Protein backbone atom coordinates (compact mmCIF):
# COMPACT_ATOMS: atom_id res chain seq x y z
CA UNK A 1 0.00 0.00 0.00
CA UNK A 2 1.32 3.46 -0.93
CA UNK A 3 2.12 5.86 1.90
CA UNK A 4 -0.31 8.39 0.45
CA UNK A 5 -3.16 5.90 0.50
CA UNK A 6 -2.42 4.90 4.11
CA UNK A 7 -2.38 8.55 5.16
CA UNK A 8 -5.68 9.28 3.39
CA UNK A 9 -7.40 6.31 4.95
CA UNK A 10 -6.10 7.27 8.40
CA UNK A 11 -7.47 10.80 7.90
CA UNK A 12 -10.84 9.40 6.78
CA UNK A 13 -11.11 7.21 9.89
CA UNK A 14 -10.13 10.05 12.25
CA UNK A 15 -12.64 12.35 10.60
CA UNK A 16 -15.44 9.80 11.05
CA UNK A 17 -14.65 8.79 14.63
CA UNK A 18 -13.90 12.24 16.00
CA UNK A 19 -16.38 14.07 13.81
CA UNK A 20 -13.85 16.65 12.54
CA UNK A 21 -13.37 17.99 8.99
CA UNK A 22 -10.69 16.20 6.96
CA UNK A 23 -9.12 19.60 6.13
CA UNK A 24 -8.34 20.19 9.79
CA UNK A 25 -6.36 16.97 10.09
CA UNK A 26 -2.61 17.40 9.49
CA UNK A 27 0.27 14.96 10.11
CA UNK A 28 1.39 17.01 13.11
CA UNK A 29 -2.13 17.25 14.63
CA UNK A 30 -2.36 15.91 18.16
CA UNK A 31 -5.52 13.88 18.79
CA UNK A 32 -6.43 15.45 22.12
CA UNK A 33 -5.07 19.01 21.97
CA UNK A 34 -5.62 19.80 18.26
CA UNK A 35 -8.48 17.53 17.20
CA UNK A 36 -10.50 17.67 20.42
CA UNK A 37 -10.49 13.94 21.09
CA UNK A 38 -11.63 12.87 24.53
CA UNK A 39 -9.33 10.28 26.07
CA UNK A 40 -12.09 7.66 25.88
CA UNK A 41 -12.11 7.98 22.10
CA UNK A 42 -8.63 6.52 21.81
CA UNK A 43 -10.04 3.01 22.26
CA UNK A 44 -12.52 3.72 19.47
CA UNK A 45 -9.80 5.07 17.19
CA UNK A 46 -7.69 1.96 17.71
CA UNK A 47 -10.65 -0.27 16.85
CA UNK A 48 -11.49 1.90 13.84
CA UNK A 49 -7.93 1.67 12.47
CA UNK A 50 -7.91 -2.09 12.98
CA UNK A 51 -11.21 -2.32 11.15
CA UNK A 52 -10.07 -0.09 8.28
CA UNK A 53 -6.78 -1.91 7.64
CA UNK A 54 -7.85 -5.36 8.80
CA UNK A 55 -5.02 -5.60 11.34
CA UNK A 56 -4.69 -6.32 15.07
CA UNK A 57 -2.55 -3.78 16.90
CA UNK A 58 -0.79 -4.09 20.25
CA UNK A 59 -3.28 -2.15 22.34
CA UNK A 60 -1.14 -0.58 25.06
CA UNK A 61 1.43 0.69 22.54
CA UNK A 62 -1.30 1.91 20.20
CA UNK A 63 -2.88 3.94 23.00
CA UNK A 64 0.43 5.77 23.48
CA UNK A 65 0.31 7.26 19.97
CA UNK A 66 -0.48 10.97 20.22
CA UNK A 67 -0.37 12.44 16.69
CA UNK A 68 -1.78 11.67 13.25
CA UNK A 69 1.69 11.24 11.71
CA UNK A 70 2.74 8.83 14.47
CA UNK A 71 -0.48 6.87 13.94
CA UNK A 72 0.37 6.46 10.25
CA UNK A 73 3.86 5.22 11.16
CA UNK A 74 2.44 2.88 13.80
CA UNK A 75 -0.09 1.36 11.43
CA UNK A 76 2.53 0.92 8.67
CA UNK A 77 4.48 -1.62 10.72
CA UNK A 78 1.46 -3.92 10.62
CA UNK A 79 1.03 -3.60 6.85
CA UNK A 80 4.43 -4.93 5.83
Amino acid at each position, binding site marked *: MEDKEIYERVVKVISEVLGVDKEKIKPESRFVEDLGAESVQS*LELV*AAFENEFDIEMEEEAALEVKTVGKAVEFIKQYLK
Partner: protein
Amino acid sequence: MKLIERFIEEAKKLNRKVVFPEGTDERIIIAASELKKEKIAQPVLIGKREEIEKVAENIKADISEIEIINPEEVDYFDHLVSLYMEHRKNIKKSIAEKLVKRPLIFGGMLVASGKVSTMVAGAVNTTANVIQSAALTVGYLPEISSASSFFIMALPDGRVFFYADCAVNITPDENQLAEIAYATALNYKKLMKDTPKVAFLSFSTKGSASHPLVEKVQKAVEIAREKYKDFLFDGEFQADTAIVESVAKRKVKEVSEVAGKANVLIFPDLNAGNIAYKLTQYLAGADAYGPILQGFAKPVSDLSRGAKVKDIIGTVAITCLQT
Protein backbone atom coordinates in the same frame (compact mmCIF):
# COMPACT_ATOMS: atom_id res chain seq x y z
CA MET B 1 -15.31 -7.37 63.02
CA LYS B 2 -13.11 -5.70 60.44
CA LEU B 3 -14.83 -3.21 58.20
CA ILE B 4 -14.16 -5.29 55.10
CA GLU B 5 -15.77 -8.33 56.75
CA ARG B 6 -18.85 -6.22 57.43
CA PHE B 7 -18.94 -5.18 53.76
CA ILE B 8 -18.66 -8.82 52.71
CA GLU B 9 -21.58 -9.76 55.00
CA GLU B 10 -23.67 -6.94 53.54
CA ALA B 11 -22.73 -7.93 49.99
CA LYS B 12 -24.04 -11.44 50.72
CA LYS B 13 -27.48 -10.01 51.40
CA LEU B 14 -27.50 -8.44 47.92
CA ASN B 15 -25.76 -11.36 46.12
CA ARG B 16 -25.28 -9.25 42.98
CA LYS B 17 -24.12 -10.43 39.58
CA VAL B 18 -20.59 -9.27 38.88
CA VAL B 19 -18.74 -9.65 35.58
CA PHE B 20 -14.99 -10.31 35.27
CA PRO B 21 -13.63 -9.50 31.79
CA GLU B 22 -10.29 -11.09 32.69
CA GLY B 23 -11.81 -14.57 32.89
CA THR B 24 -8.62 -16.53 32.24
CA ASP B 25 -6.58 -14.90 35.02
CA GLU B 26 -5.81 -17.41 37.79
CA ARG B 27 -6.55 -15.00 40.64
CA ILE B 28 -9.84 -14.00 39.06
CA ILE B 29 -10.86 -17.65 38.68
CA ILE B 30 -10.02 -18.43 42.31
CA ALA B 31 -11.83 -15.29 43.50
CA ALA B 32 -14.86 -16.21 41.39
CA SER B 33 -15.05 -19.69 42.87
CA GLU B 34 -14.76 -18.26 46.40
CA LEU B 35 -17.44 -15.64 45.72
CA LYS B 36 -19.76 -18.34 44.45
CA LYS B 37 -19.02 -20.76 47.29
CA GLU B 38 -19.45 -18.10 50.00
CA LYS B 39 -22.50 -16.63 48.20
CA ILE B 40 -21.00 -13.13 48.28
CA ALA B 41 -21.84 -12.44 44.63
CA GLN B 42 -22.75 -14.30 41.43
CA PRO B 43 -19.61 -14.21 39.29
CA VAL B 44 -19.68 -14.18 35.50
CA LEU B 45 -16.41 -14.88 33.68
CA ILE B 46 -15.78 -13.55 30.18
CA GLY B 47 -13.70 -15.65 27.82
CA LYS B 48 -13.58 -18.92 25.92
CA ARG B 49 -14.94 -21.80 28.02
CA GLU B 50 -12.19 -24.27 27.15
CA GLU B 51 -9.44 -21.75 27.99
CA ILE B 52 -10.98 -20.82 31.35
CA GLU B 53 -11.62 -24.47 32.23
CA LYS B 54 -8.04 -25.36 31.41
CA VAL B 55 -6.67 -22.70 33.78
CA ALA B 56 -9.19 -23.72 36.46
CA GLU B 57 -8.14 -27.36 36.15
CA ASN B 58 -4.46 -26.47 36.51
CA ILE B 59 -5.07 -24.56 39.73
CA LYS B 60 -7.78 -26.99 40.93
CA ALA B 61 -10.48 -24.32 41.21
CA ASP B 62 -14.10 -25.41 41.12
CA ILE B 63 -15.92 -23.38 38.49
CA SER B 64 -18.57 -25.98 37.66
CA GLU B 65 -21.42 -23.68 38.66
CA ILE B 66 -19.96 -20.42 37.39
CA GLU B 67 -21.44 -18.70 34.37
CA ILE B 68 -18.97 -18.25 31.50
CA ILE B 69 -19.76 -15.96 28.57
CA ASN B 70 -17.89 -15.83 25.27
CA PRO B 71 -18.78 -12.49 23.60
CA GLU B 72 -18.65 -14.09 20.17
CA GLU B 73 -21.23 -16.73 21.00
CA VAL B 74 -24.05 -14.91 22.79
CA ASP B 75 -27.35 -14.44 20.97
CA TYR B 76 -27.76 -10.89 22.30
CA PHE B 77 -24.44 -9.69 20.84
CA ASP B 78 -26.17 -7.59 18.15
CA HIS B 79 -28.38 -6.02 20.79
CA LEU B 80 -25.31 -4.90 22.75
CA VAL B 81 -23.76 -3.53 19.54
CA SER B 82 -26.81 -1.41 18.77
CA LEU B 83 -26.97 -0.26 22.37
CA TYR B 84 -23.32 0.81 22.10
CA MET B 85 -24.08 2.73 18.90
CA GLU B 86 -26.97 4.54 20.58
CA HIS B 87 -24.50 6.01 23.10
CA ARG B 88 -21.69 6.62 20.63
CA LYS B 89 -23.16 8.21 17.53
CA ASN B 90 -20.00 8.50 15.39
CA ILE B 91 -19.21 4.81 15.52
CA LYS B 92 -20.05 2.61 12.52
CA LYS B 93 -21.49 -0.86 13.05
CA SER B 94 -18.34 -2.71 11.96
CA ILE B 95 -16.24 -0.74 14.46
CA ALA B 96 -18.80 -1.16 17.22
CA GLU B 97 -18.78 -4.92 16.62
CA LYS B 98 -15.02 -4.96 16.97
CA LEU B 99 -15.19 -2.95 20.19
CA VAL B 100 -17.97 -4.97 21.81
CA LYS B 101 -16.00 -8.20 21.22
CA ARG B 102 -13.30 -6.83 23.54
CA PRO B 103 -13.76 -8.24 27.03
CA LEU B 104 -13.65 -4.87 28.85
CA ILE B 105 -16.15 -3.24 26.50
CA PHE B 106 -18.33 -6.35 26.45
CA GLY B 107 -18.29 -6.45 30.26
CA GLY B 108 -19.18 -2.76 30.37
CA MET B 109 -22.08 -3.37 28.00
CA LEU B 110 -23.36 -6.21 30.20
CA VAL B 111 -23.47 -3.66 33.04
CA ALA B 112 -24.95 -0.92 30.84
CA SER B 113 -27.70 -3.24 29.56
CA GLY B 114 -28.55 -4.39 33.09
CA LYS B 115 -27.62 -8.05 32.50
CA VAL B 116 -25.20 -7.81 35.43
CA SER B 117 -24.87 -5.26 38.26
CA THR B 118 -21.17 -4.44 38.23
CA MET B 119 -17.83 -5.05 36.57
CA VAL B 120 -14.47 -5.65 38.27
CA ALA B 121 -11.31 -5.59 36.13
CA GLY B 122 -7.71 -4.44 36.16
CA ALA B 123 -5.87 -7.59 37.29
CA VAL B 124 -4.41 -7.66 33.76
CA ASN B 125 -5.54 -4.42 32.09
CA THR B 126 -4.33 -0.91 32.96
CA THR B 127 -6.41 1.45 35.08
CA ALA B 128 -6.68 3.84 32.11
CA ASN B 129 -8.11 1.08 29.98
CA VAL B 130 -10.66 0.07 32.63
CA ILE B 131 -11.74 3.70 33.11
CA GLN B 132 -12.03 4.38 29.38
CA SER B 133 -13.97 1.18 28.74
CA ALA B 134 -16.39 2.01 31.56
CA ALA B 135 -16.79 5.59 30.30
CA LEU B 136 -17.62 4.35 26.79
CA THR B 137 -20.18 1.80 27.97
CA VAL B 138 -21.65 2.56 31.38
CA GLY B 139 -21.05 6.32 31.18
CA TYR B 140 -21.07 8.79 34.05
CA LEU B 141 -23.64 9.73 36.67
CA PRO B 142 -25.68 12.83 35.90
CA GLU B 143 -23.68 15.90 36.99
CA ILE B 144 -20.40 13.98 36.79
CA SER B 145 -18.03 14.38 33.84
CA SER B 146 -15.05 12.22 34.72
CA ALA B 147 -13.95 9.24 36.79
CA SER B 148 -12.26 9.59 40.15
CA SER B 149 -11.46 7.30 43.06
CA PHE B 150 -11.61 7.07 46.82
CA PHE B 151 -9.94 5.13 49.61
CA ILE B 152 -11.68 3.83 52.71
CA MET B 153 -9.33 4.37 55.65
CA ALA B 154 -10.26 2.27 58.68
CA LEU B 155 -8.30 3.32 61.75
CA PRO B 156 -7.38 0.93 64.60
CA ASP B 157 -9.71 2.87 66.97
CA GLY B 158 -12.70 2.11 64.73
CA ARG B 159 -13.01 5.49 63.04
CA VAL B 160 -13.50 5.44 59.27
CA PHE B 161 -12.61 8.21 56.83
CA PHE B 162 -13.07 8.35 53.07
CA TYR B 163 -10.15 10.00 51.22
CA ALA B 164 -10.36 11.30 47.64
CA ASP B 165 -8.89 11.51 45.10
CA CYS B 166 -5.73 9.56 45.91
CA ALA B 167 -5.24 7.66 42.66
CA VAL B 168 -6.77 9.02 39.46
CA ASN B 169 -6.87 12.82 38.92
CA ILE B 170 -3.44 14.45 39.14
CA THR B 171 -4.38 18.15 39.21
CA PRO B 172 -8.16 18.43 39.43
CA ASP B 173 -9.57 21.94 38.81
CA GLU B 174 -12.27 23.41 41.04
CA ASN B 175 -15.10 21.78 39.06
CA GLN B 176 -13.46 18.37 39.20
CA LEU B 177 -12.79 18.78 42.93
CA ALA B 178 -16.48 19.53 43.48
CA GLU B 179 -17.41 16.43 41.45
CA ILE B 180 -14.95 14.26 43.37
CA ALA B 181 -16.46 15.52 46.63
CA TYR B 182 -19.99 14.77 45.47
CA ALA B 183 -19.15 11.27 44.19
CA THR B 184 -17.32 10.43 47.42
CA ALA B 185 -20.22 11.74 49.53
CA LEU B 186 -22.63 9.48 47.60
CA ASN B 187 -20.40 6.48 48.26
CA TYR B 188 -19.90 7.31 51.92
CA LYS B 189 -23.67 7.37 52.36
CA LYS B 190 -24.13 4.07 50.54
CA LEU B 191 -21.32 2.19 52.22
CA MET B 192 -21.37 3.64 55.73
CA LYS B 193 -25.15 4.29 55.90
CA ASP B 194 -24.38 7.56 57.67
CA THR B 195 -24.32 11.28 56.83
CA PRO B 196 -21.21 12.31 54.92
CA LYS B 197 -19.52 15.46 56.24
CA VAL B 198 -17.24 16.57 53.47
CA ALA B 199 -14.17 18.74 54.15
CA PHE B 200 -12.12 20.29 51.35
CA LEU B 201 -8.53 20.33 52.58
CA SER B 202 -5.82 22.92 52.05
CA PHE B 203 -2.88 24.50 53.87
CA SER B 204 -5.28 27.31 54.80
CA THR B 205 -8.37 27.47 57.02
CA LYS B 206 -11.19 29.76 55.87
CA GLY B 207 -8.93 32.30 54.23
CA SER B 208 -6.06 32.22 56.75
CA ALA B 209 -3.72 32.18 53.74
CA SER B 210 -4.23 33.65 50.30
CA HIS B 211 -2.80 31.90 47.27
CA PRO B 212 -4.19 30.68 43.93
CA LEU B 213 -4.03 27.09 45.28
CA VAL B 214 -6.23 28.10 48.21
CA GLU B 215 -8.62 29.97 45.94
CA LYS B 216 -9.09 26.85 43.84
CA VAL B 217 -10.25 24.95 46.91
CA GLN B 218 -12.52 27.82 48.01
CA LYS B 219 -14.15 27.86 44.58
CA ALA B 220 -14.62 24.09 44.71
CA VAL B 221 -16.52 24.43 48.00
CA GLU B 222 -18.81 27.05 46.47
CA ILE B 223 -19.45 24.95 43.37
CA ALA B 224 -20.19 21.83 45.42
CA ARG B 225 -22.63 23.68 47.68
CA GLU B 226 -24.37 25.29 44.73
CA LYS B 227 -24.57 22.15 42.60
CA TYR B 228 -25.08 19.30 45.05
CA LYS B 229 -27.47 20.56 47.69
CA ASP B 230 -28.12 17.18 49.34
CA PHE B 231 -24.79 17.04 51.14
CA LEU B 232 -22.76 18.97 53.75
CA PHE B 233 -19.64 20.53 52.25
CA ASP B 234 -17.28 22.92 53.98
CA GLY B 235 -13.75 24.27 53.72
CA GLU B 236 -11.18 25.20 52.99
CA PHE B 237 -9.78 23.55 56.10
CA GLN B 238 -6.39 22.43 57.27
CA ALA B 239 -6.49 18.72 58.08
CA ASP B 240 -6.54 19.20 61.88
CA THR B 241 -9.40 21.69 61.64
CA ALA B 242 -11.36 19.17 59.60
CA ILE B 243 -11.10 16.25 62.01
CA VAL B 244 -10.26 17.58 65.51
CA GLU B 245 -13.15 19.33 67.27
CA SER B 246 -11.02 21.37 69.71
CA VAL B 247 -8.95 22.76 66.84
CA ALA B 248 -12.05 23.48 64.81
CA LYS B 249 -13.60 25.40 67.71
CA ARG B 250 -10.53 27.59 67.91
CA LYS B 251 -9.99 28.18 64.22
CA VAL B 252 -13.48 28.27 62.71
CA LYS B 253 -15.57 31.16 63.96
CA GLU B 254 -18.71 30.46 61.91
CA VAL B 255 -21.16 27.62 62.52
CA SER B 256 -20.05 24.54 60.65
CA GLU B 257 -21.51 21.05 60.67
CA VAL B 258 -18.33 19.74 59.08
CA ALA B 259 -15.41 21.42 60.89
CA GLY B 260 -13.92 19.03 63.47
CA LYS B 261 -16.41 16.32 62.45
CA ALA B 262 -15.47 15.57 58.85
CA ASN B 263 -15.59 11.96 57.69
CA VAL B 264 -14.89 12.59 53.99
CA LEU B 265 -11.61 14.35 53.16
CA ILE B 266 -11.12 15.91 49.74
CA PHE B 267 -7.49 16.60 48.86
CA PRO B 268 -6.52 19.47 46.55
CA ASP B 269 -4.44 17.29 44.24
CA LEU B 270 -2.98 13.84 43.80
CA ASN B 271 0.28 14.71 45.58
CA ALA B 272 -1.60 15.51 48.77
CA GLY B 273 -4.13 12.68 48.48
CA ASN B 274 -1.71 9.93 47.69
CA ILE B 275 0.79 10.99 50.36
CA ALA B 276 -1.95 11.34 52.98
CA TYR B 277 -3.42 7.89 52.46
CA LYS B 278 -0.04 6.19 52.63
CA LEU B 279 0.96 8.10 55.78
CA THR B 280 -2.35 7.22 57.41
CA GLN B 281 -1.83 3.59 56.46
CA TYR B 282 1.75 3.30 57.68
CA LEU B 283 1.98 5.80 60.55
CA ALA B 284 -1.50 5.39 62.00
CA GLY B 285 -1.83 1.68 61.18
CA ALA B 286 -5.03 2.16 59.20
CA ASP B 287 -6.42 -0.42 56.82
CA ALA B 288 -6.67 1.18 53.37
CA TYR B 289 -9.30 -0.19 50.99
CA GLY B 290 -9.07 1.10 47.46
CA PRO B 291 -8.65 2.88 45.22
CA ILE B 292 -12.33 2.33 44.43
CA LEU B 293 -13.44 3.94 41.18
CA GLN B 294 -16.42 6.27 41.23
CA GLY B 295 -18.42 8.59 39.03
CA PHE B 296 -19.86 5.96 36.69
CA ALA B 297 -23.59 5.58 36.21
CA LYS B 298 -23.23 2.03 37.54
CA PRO B 299 -20.29 0.82 39.60
CA VAL B 300 -17.16 -0.47 37.89
CA SER B 301 -14.01 -1.19 39.88
CA ASP B 302 -10.37 -1.40 39.07
CA LEU B 303 -7.90 -3.84 40.61
CA SER B 304 -4.19 -3.28 40.94
CA ARG B 305 -2.21 -5.60 38.71
CA GLY B 306 -0.62 -7.05 41.81
CA ALA B 307 -4.02 -7.75 43.39
CA LYS B 308 -4.32 -10.91 45.48
CA VAL B 309 -7.46 -13.08 45.69
CA LYS B 310 -8.37 -11.50 49.04
CA ASP B 311 -8.11 -7.98 47.48
CA ILE B 312 -10.34 -9.03 44.60
CA ILE B 313 -13.02 -10.36 46.95
CA GLY B 314 -12.89 -7.17 49.04
CA THR B 315 -13.18 -4.99 45.95
CA VAL B 316 -16.13 -7.04 44.70
CA ALA B 317 -17.92 -6.63 48.04
CA ILE B 318 -17.41 -2.86 48.06
CA THR B 319 -18.41 -2.56 44.41
CA CYS B 320 -21.61 -4.52 45.02
CA LEU B 321 -22.51 -2.17 47.87
CA GLN B 322 -22.13 0.79 45.49
CA THR B 323 -25.05 -0.52 43.40
